[in-house]
Structures are given as C-alpha cells and as structure tokens.
C-alpha cells in the first residue's frame, strides 16, 4: 500500500480533495484543497488503510518578498502555505500535506485567511494551530479556543509574517 495506489484510494474516497502532488521531492507531498483538509485528515486518521494517528507538526510559510526588487525575480505569487506532517505509529511511515491559502482573506489586509481546524481529528492539533494562528496569522475555523499561545494575549501583528514590523514599545518597554 505505497505511493500511487495509496493516492488512488485517497482520491477514490475523497474526489477532488487532492489538487497537486510532487512525489519526487526530498519529502514527497500532496496538496489538498484548503476547505477539504478536515475531511482528508479525518479519512487518514480513521478510514485510510494506513492509519495516520499522530500529527507531528503544522507549519505556516509566508511566501511574500517584502522589497520590490527581489519580488520581481520571484516565480511564485505571494501566498501563505500550510504544511501538515503526519506520522503513522503502526506503519511507521510519514505523510506531508500542503495547503495554499491567500495571504489575507479576499486580499483585504487585516483579514486572516481561514482554514478548517483539524482539532476534531487529533486533539494534539489544538496547541499547534494556536501557535500558527499566533505567529503566522491563520484563522482555524472550528477550533475550541483560538487564542495566542506564545505571544502575550494583547500582542498585535503576527511575527513570522515577512512584512511584520517590530512594535516601537509594548506596555512602556522600548521595542526597537
């Protein structure tokens, strides 16, 4: 149950979920439509022949080049990419899912992009999603309590975004 036939099973179960794949990369990955991520993970955790019962980590990568000179030479459009690393305890194999989200919802700066939360599938995702929300600014719909986890509750901005400005002062403490 490896490679292509695993993908065909996934495709059969959830048509249209997989929107891209790259099996030759260092870590082969498949791209999932953002709104279908929760269903795919639910299938992977319960009904998939290889049960992925452990979510290792969720990473958000901000593809955005701040200064214009370099931005011209870049091949990709600015977007936020979410990478899910899964692990099957029984089969001892890993799986990488990727989702591409717009940097801002409807390209309105300040509106965080939204993606369904996978807390329902693995309760461990709770803290990972809170960290991604806190540092990279991605709103997980359906998350039990989406609050900042590493930065203070009243912190503005999302530090890991490329266009993040260090605040000048925070409660009287000089920033820059």
């Amino acid at each position, binding site marked *: 149950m490896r490679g292509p036939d695993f993908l065909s099973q996934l495709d059969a179960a959830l048509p249209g979920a997989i929107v891209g794949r790259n099996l030759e990369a260092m870590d082969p990955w498949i791209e999932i439509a953002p709104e279908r991520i929760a269903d795919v993970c639910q299938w992977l955790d319960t009904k998939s022949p290889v049960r992925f*019962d452990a979510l*290792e980590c969720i990473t958000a990568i901000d593809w955005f080049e701040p200064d214009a000179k370099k931005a011209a030479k870049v091949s990709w459009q600015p977007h936020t990419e979410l*990478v899910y690393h899964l692990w099957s305890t029984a089969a*001892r194999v890993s799986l990488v899912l990727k989702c591409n989200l717009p940097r801002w919802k409807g390209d309105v700066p300040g509106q965080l992009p939204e993606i369904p939360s996978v807390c329902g599938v693995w309760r461990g995702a709770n803290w990972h999603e809170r960290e991604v929300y806190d540092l990279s600014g991605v709103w997980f719909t359906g998350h039990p309590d989406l609050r900042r986890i590493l930065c203070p509750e009243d912190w503005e901005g999302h530090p*890991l975004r490329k266009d*993040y400005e260090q605040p000048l002062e925070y409660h009287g403490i000089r920033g820059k």
Partner: protein
Amino acid sequence: MASAIDDDPRIIEFDVRTDEMLVNMGPQHPSTHGVLRLVLRTDGEVVSEIEPHIGYLHRCAEKIGENLTARQWIPYTDRMDYLAAMNMNLGWALTVEKLMKYEVSEKARHLRVLIAELSRIASHLVGMGAYGLDLGTFSPFLYAFREREKILDLFEEACGARLTYSYITVGGLTADLPPGWLGRCEAFLDQFEPIIKEYHALLTTNAIFVKRTANIGVLSRELAIEYGCSGPVLRGSGVDQDMRRDGEAIYTAMYDGYAFEVAVMKNGHYPRDHEYPPVPADAVLGDCWHRFFVRMLEVVQSMDLVRQAIDRYSACKGTIGEPLKLTEKIPAGDAYLETEAPKGQMGFYVVSDGTAIPWRVRARSSSFSNLAVAPELCRGCLIADVPAIVGSLDIVMGEIDR
C-alpha cells in the same frame, strides 16, 4: 462523551457545595521546570482542571533563522533544549545535510553517536534529579548533578563549552576529540555503572516514591499518540517507537550496526539486557512511574551505545572532515527530519529558496506536545500530584517556547 458520564444515574454526585478556587502555580514556582504558569481550578485539595500558560521564554528563534545561514543558526538550537544541546545541534545539522544530500565521514558519524548518547545520559540525569525534587527528596538531585558534572567536563574538553556547545554542526563537527579523551570517557562509564543501582535504590524502588508515582497521571496509548507525545512519555505508555530505529534513513544510518533494545514494555516486560528492579505491583502502564523508569533504562542503554561508539570511532581511520563553509548555499526545496532527542522526537523543518539563508526554519518541539497532554492527565488529581505529573513529562521551557 463527558456529558454521558454526568447524567449517568449510577453516579450520584451529591456533595456539600464547595466553590472552586483558581490558584496560580508559577511562573516563578520552584517545581515548574523553568517559566511555566499553571492555572489550577481546585476544589479544596482536588484539582478539577489545569491550564498551562506558556510563552514566557519565547525568543522567536524561527524569525531569527530567516536572517542567518544554516550554520549560523546552530547556537539557537543549543538554547532550545539547553539540557541536551548536543541532540538539538545534531537534529538541525542532519536536517540541512538531508536537504543538501551531504554525507559526513564515517568517523564523524560514530563521533556524533557517541556525543549524542552521552548528552542523553546527562539530560536524563537532570530529569531524574529534578523529578526527585518535585516529590520532595533533595539528595538524588545532587547525586545526579555530581555525575552530570563529569559528563560536562568531558564535553568541555571536546568543545570548550559546558551547556551550549554548538559542537555538532552542518557537515560534521567543529573539532575532533583531544587525545586521552576516550580513556577518560571509558573511566567515567565504568565508575558510573554501579551508581545506577544507587539511583534505583534511592528512587525507583523507594516505597514512598512508588506511592507518589504509581497509578498517577495514567496516559493511555491512544491519548499519547493522539497528542503527538514522543520519547519516554510515549514509550512509558507502551508504544514501541524510537526514531533511532524507526526514523528517516539518514538518521537511522548513524545507528547502523549498533546493538540496542528500545526501552519499552513489550508483552509484559522491559528489555532484560541488564538486570533492573521489578515493576511495582500497583504501577499501571502509562503512569508517572513507568515514564521515569523508561528514562532510567535509557541511561543504561545509552551507556552501551557510547561504549560501542568508542570502539567504532577508534577503529575508523582518517579524520572527521571539515564542516561546511559558514555561508554554504542550500539547494532549493524543503526537508523535515525528526531525531530522537532525550525529551522526545525533535523535528526540524527547513525551506530553502536556493540562497545560503533559508526561507523558513521550523522547530517541532517534543516537550510542546508532551505538555499539551498534561491537562488531560491532571483532571481530578490532587494538588500534590500536579508537580509529580508535570515533572514526569520532563519538559524544558526553552524548547517549548523557542
């Protein structure tokens, strides 16, 4: 599911009305490891809910990683799990070498195994000593640190630092071992062997220690897997998973030919390669005692690995080779690798756009997931159990907050 329990007629909850009290344990609390704040909702002595607040030690090392080259970021990995900095360096170095498809020399590989396992012993010693402190006994902490000092002296001879080494780096190690180092290391291992029995006598088989840890904070297999726990916490619940054997090819290649058994309770008993004290009667798989015991087994396991590494290292001819240039270009692409750090599976994820400075750097911390399961374990326990449970997870705040 929780509501099913509440209105089950069998269980009548009729108690004199007591109002719950919100109590703050931390962030300046002697028993939380570093700056962790636990908000306890208690009803008298019984804790009904705990909520960890983290982030007091957050330095956003990942943002800094986007402005430094791979080798320049090594010192930041030291400061994540500062009790086992060598394993952090190894994790990051291997991830970048995986992306660059760079092979270090065989001698360097054996030296890396030797150093990583020695650092695991040091980290478990701190875990054991601090856990004794959480339960109120002070002396084991000092016995543990007396032995750890000897390991730190060995590391100081090897790389000049005692806590944040930056010794293992991308492309090998910064320096080879000084002459006579292997002899001193073997002398340390020989005198350390009988001391392990001392720790067992002091803590593992101590009646009060067993009373305080057996059947406390029971973590079931499924809960541990679902929360992504790893390392001794996962193996303490009976899940047979160890990245040194089940990990990625580049990591498990380092341990090729090393004979070691994963310290987990398989079909009712722990590996019998050395004689260990028996499991107490009322210890349930997945409780604090088992997590502690798995760490003690791993210390002995690591000692065997270090001995084998010493033989293989001295058998290799040639040098350990030079580490890569400070500003070495990294091929475009991304790579994720999990290594077996003392606290659990430490994952590093590097995304590169072809320049020397990586585009995005991500560190997946084992203690982060291990701590996430704490609220599930502490529901309904007593206040004195909270430090016992959190202590048994052996968390380090530097790694959680990054």
